[in-house]
């Protein structure tokens, strides 16, 4: 195998920070090369250097691509050479059709006039390659995230890609969509396309990657071949220490029932007649972590948000009891007063005011707690923020730092702090570890254990089954808006959870 790309001694300095320090990366022709590292280790910066976002001259070191030095002045230069990067946040225009998106900026046109028949024909060919059977005229916004991700890959193929870079492509995907995407990567590899895969998910990496480069603190730590790697080894290289336990120890000690939901029904906010949550009954005990398993889009978030101040859906019926008494959770304010907190899965859109400092985000849901007759005490507010900064070990130079500047893990700790300051009895955590690195995950788990030790109840929604199995005392399995079953810690296993999900599918077929 010939070497396609060699990055040697790449150093990139931002004012005050050395983001990359002599990083080396060698990618062979036709391989899938994974890059692993904690958030902030420098993976994305490295890819931005490669793709020309940081132009030649703004970094030190050299890049040899296809046997010749690569000097990119911008993304256009790198794309012309067949280097195409697919970012974590998809760059599709939701209101345009698939065909329009695929050839955006690269239209099938002569003298500025689009040749639609040819465009559609090419689109169909590309869609076939990525295994999609949508019409080329379908609006992209109407597709799910999984399909949109495939469209992004088709878009790269439309540009004659030679080196495809995927930045955490499966972060927002559920299990079966992820599998499809990984299969596609393997298929592309057979066709001779080289890929760089940035991912946190170790099982995916070991499934598809030929080699792995691990980056820590802006330097490349090691490059391993997949035969020689174990998940433990990767984790050790990533965090720089052995992580004997991925989930902190806890002795379960459930007390009396804290929250009880009975006969909960929710209809879709726009589409009439579409029931999203069907007769759901769940309960949470004091000091208990209860998991909700299920694929994405099965109503887990909808359940949580409808419980929390009817923030989702319409025609909501059912009762919520806290400590045996029926409570009104029909507005967020009432839900908070009843002792409920919901930590969203989408912290940037729904959880944080990104341009505001940490201190103002933490007190937002309980301003009364730092105010006397509606007048905020800045001092008290800062004390509260400092307390949570210490308790949660939020890593920041100051609590006056804007949260937009924090890493994913630290942002999540700010959201958690905000909700803890409302002193809830039950916290619903929706994908609490999404998009954060292994080290920060462990910290979040530890915080969860402290919460239940204080006698609170925690509901954890997650798409990652190992995490549910490692953390929860009890797991509800959800599918298509229904609770399909309930497993105790002892009973639960990935197979049994999948079996409960599939029970519905087989029932439907039969």
């Amino acid at each position, binding site marked *: 195998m010939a070497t396609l790309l060699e990055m040697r001694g790449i150093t990139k300095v931002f004012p005050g920070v050395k983001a990359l320090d002599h990083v080396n990366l060698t990618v062979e022709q036709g391989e899938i090369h994974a890059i692993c590292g904690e958030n902030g280790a420098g993976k994305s910066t490295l890819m931005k250097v490669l793709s020309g976002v940081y132009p030649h001259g703004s970094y030190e070191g050299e890049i040899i691509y296809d046997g010749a030095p690569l000097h990119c002045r911008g993304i256009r230069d790198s794309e012309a050479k067949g280097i195409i990067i697919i970012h974590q946040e998809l760059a599709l225009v939701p209101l345009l059709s698939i065909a329009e998106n695929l050839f955006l900026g690269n239209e099938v046109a002569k003298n500025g006039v689009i040749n639609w028949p040819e465009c559609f024909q090419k689109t169909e060919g590309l869609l076939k390659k990525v295994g999609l059977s949508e019409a080329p005229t379908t609006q992209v916004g109407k597709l799910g995230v999984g399909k949109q991700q495939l469209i992004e890959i088709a878009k790269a193929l439309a540009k004659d890609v030679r080196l495809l870079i995927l930045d955490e492509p499966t972060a927002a995907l559920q299990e079966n969509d992820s599998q499809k995407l990984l299969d596609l990567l393997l298929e592309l590899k057979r066709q001779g396309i080289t890929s760089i895969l940035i991912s946190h998910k170790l099982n995916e990496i070991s499934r598809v990657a030929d080699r792995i480069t691990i980056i820590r603190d802006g330097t490349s730590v090691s490059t391993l071949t997949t035969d020689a790697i174990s998940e433990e080894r990767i984790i050790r290289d990533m965090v720089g220490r052995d992580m004997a336990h991925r989930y902190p120890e806890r002795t379960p000690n459930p007390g009396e029932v804290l929250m009880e939901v009975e006969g909960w029904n929710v209809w879709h906010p726009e589409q009439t007649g579409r029931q999203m949550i069907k007769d759901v009954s769940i309960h949470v005990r004091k000091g208990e972590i209860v998991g909700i398993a299920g694929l994405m889009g099965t109503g887990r978030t909808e359940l949580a948000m409808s419980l929390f101040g009817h*923030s989702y859906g319409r025609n909501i019926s059912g009762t919520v009891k806290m400590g045996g008494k029926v409570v009104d959770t029909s507005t967020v304010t009432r839900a908070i007063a009843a002792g409920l907190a919901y930590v969203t899965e989408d912290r940037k859109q729904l959880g944080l005011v990104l341009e505001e400092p940490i201190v103002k985000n933490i007190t937002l849901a309980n301003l009364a707690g730092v105010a006397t007759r509606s007048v905020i005490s800045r001092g008290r507010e800062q004390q509260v923020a400092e307390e949570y900064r210490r308790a949660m070990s939020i890593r920041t130079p*100051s609590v006056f730092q804007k949260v937009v500047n924090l890493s994913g893990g630290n942002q999540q700790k700010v959201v958690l702090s905000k909700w803890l300051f409302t002193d809830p009895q039950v916290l619903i955590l929706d994908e609490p570890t999404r998009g954060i690195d292994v080290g920060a995950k462990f910290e979040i788990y530890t915080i969860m254990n402290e919460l239940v030790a204080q006698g609170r109840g925690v509901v954890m929604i997650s798409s990652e089954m190992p995490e549910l199995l490692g953390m929860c005392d009890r797991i509800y399995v959800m599918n298509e808006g229904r609770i399909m079953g309930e497993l105790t810690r002892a009973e639960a296993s990935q197979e049994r959870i999948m079996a409960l999900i599939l029970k519905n599918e087989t029932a439907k077929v039969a």
Partner: protein
Amino acid sequence: MADGAVAGGKGIGAHLGGHLRENGMLMALVAIVLLFTVIVRGLIGVDFLSAQNITNLFLQNSYVIIMALGMLLVIVAGHIDLSVGSVVGFTGAVAAVLTVNMGLPVFVVIPVCLLIGACIGAAQGYWIAYWRIPSFIVTLAGMLVFRGLTLWLLNGQNVGPFPKSFQSLSTGFIPDVIGAGKPNVTALVIIAIAAGIVVWLGWRARGRDEKFGITPEPMVMFVARNVVVAAALMFVGYKLASFRGLPNVVVVLGLLTVLYAFFTENTTTGRRVYALGGNEKAAKLSGINTDRLVFLTFVNMGVLASLAGMIVAARLNSSTPKAGVGFELDVIAAVFIGGASMTGGSGKIIGVVVGALIMGVMNNGMSILGIGIDYQQVIKGLVLLAAVIFDVYNKNK
């Protein structure tokens, strides 16, 4: 990562850099005033900082500042209000009809007009907040509707003059109860007390910051800024006192500025408006009644616009169908020059007042110099653009 890095250092330079926007605007205002002083004296031999001109400056620009206070809240909440100019015209017309045609006393007319302003704000805010109709559309409609109603109410004619009591809203002065004669001792005392309070509040805030371990601004900076502010206040006060005393409008303006600054920075509701503008969904999920908050910012805007409408009518001593035409642009420009963000979520009252003063000083200075309205518009447009470019540049740096 790079974005995790924070500029370290605790020198004066670093502090200035961190507060470039606030200090920059203040410095720009001082620079513009000095520039005009020099040019006006050099070219036509008139004192730009004469007592009369300073009084005029406030009388001419009071309405922009008053409305800019409310517009800041609207813009921070992520909206816009294009109707304020027409509301100024309409409430002025209502005031004229009530006082001149119907002979109602001032103490009835003022509250009635303020109430009408609140109702106008509520009517527009209702569609914006609860029906989610873009504020641009609703207030554009309002701009047409209330201009039309003004024409209808006045029959296309000027109505006036107002009785003395109503005029005093704008052209009245605080009576000199201590001294009698010039300079006006009462005015001096009030200004001195105000300056003292400003410095004292700053000192107290500084002490509190220290107590809670917030790094205070360097002592040199603190002293320098307070000396400049207090000196400027005393200078303006002295000039006002040596002319006709403290205009009522200046007192109203001062009180409103303090009130809104306090509201935006220290109250829970004020904080919530900023959160709403920064991320509406997150604010809603934090238990904030975002719809009602949007509604209330428009009600507030309506009240301030009607107050401005009465001040304008009182100053012109008649209500004209054209009163307030184009005011919305001055007000919105003042808010953006003052550093509010176009997407909502940020902006300060003090910045907005400085922004409005910059616009006012330029209007006044250029008029004295006899610069044509054509050039004036071009220059004002470029200043607005430059201020916003300066902001964006600083953010991206």
